[in-house]
């Protein structure tokens, strides 16, 4: 295990802890992206379809409060991304060995 890895993992955990804090702060100013503003300006807003098949839609966990749901989503998503990218890295590396 490379010596920088534990530090990196601690940093990732710190970021996930910040997620609910930022979520609350963004809610205070009213979260709106330019994409949403463009949709409103052209009347497209109602055409948006939410992805019903997503297990944790909108970074919320059914049964958990908003802050806890955001935190759990952040941990789950960060861990899944770490895993997926590590697998991808291994596959690409395996390609290199095969060449």
């Amino acid at each position, binding site marked *: 295990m*490379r010596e*920088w*890895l534990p530090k*990196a993992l601690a940093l*990732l955990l710190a*970021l*996930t802890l*910040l*997620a609910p804090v*930022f*979520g609350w*702060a*963004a809610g*205070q*100013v*009213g979260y*709106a*992206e*330019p*994409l949403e*503003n*463009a*949709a409103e*300006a*052209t009347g*497209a807003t109602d*055409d*948006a*379809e*939410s*992805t*019903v*098949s*997503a*297990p*944790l*839609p*909108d*970074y919320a966990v059914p049964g958990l409060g908003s802050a806890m749901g*955001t935190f759990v*989503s*952040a941990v*789950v*998503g*960060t*861990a*899944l*991304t*770490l*895993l*997926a*990218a*590590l697998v*991808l*890295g291994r596959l*690409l*590396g395996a*390609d*290199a060995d095969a*060449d």
Partner: protein
Amino acid sequence: MHIPDGYVDLSIAVFCAVLSVAVLSVAARRVGGEVSDARAPLLGVVAAGVFAAQMLNWPIPGGTSAHFVGGAFAAILLGPHLGALCLATVVTIQALVFGDGGLVVLGANVFNMAIVEVYVGYAVYRLLAPYGEFRAAFAAGWLGITAGALTAAVQLGLSSAFEYQLLTTVAIMGVGHLVLGLVEGAITAVVYRYLARARPDLRPDAVSEVAADA
């Protein structure tokens, strides 16, 4: 900047998906020889870091909000091809697990955030790096996200849901992200400078030293 399903016409979504798959296949081939055992964990950590950082919505007084996308950041740290694959992983997980960005338009979202932002950001960085890495990283984040927003605006502006109001979508998203992109540029530059100082061995041009270390 994550487009939900229903916004972009199917033909445009399919076109972008084909384009994204083509570019990512080339990226995977190009990168094949470069992913050493030492570099694979870095890809994982950068991807996870980008995912976690994207969850932080920076509140901007005046009723708007932006989050760091990280395309240029990943490109500078990992190189453009690995950076593109890194962002594509993040955008795909966001869509599949959290419904952030639609499934039909996944190819379009990957194109905007994992391809346009990454490669434009990297090109800007390379172009300006001789004049100072900090400034170059700032411009890369800033212009990279603006470029990604512009291609998103074109996809939306050519779609029926947006009544083909291309000028409106380009103006709102282009100007919006040109302003919000300053946050992206600042985070890209500050975090990159910190990493470059703390861990000079993580820089792309130090790959061989890391490999020799391991």
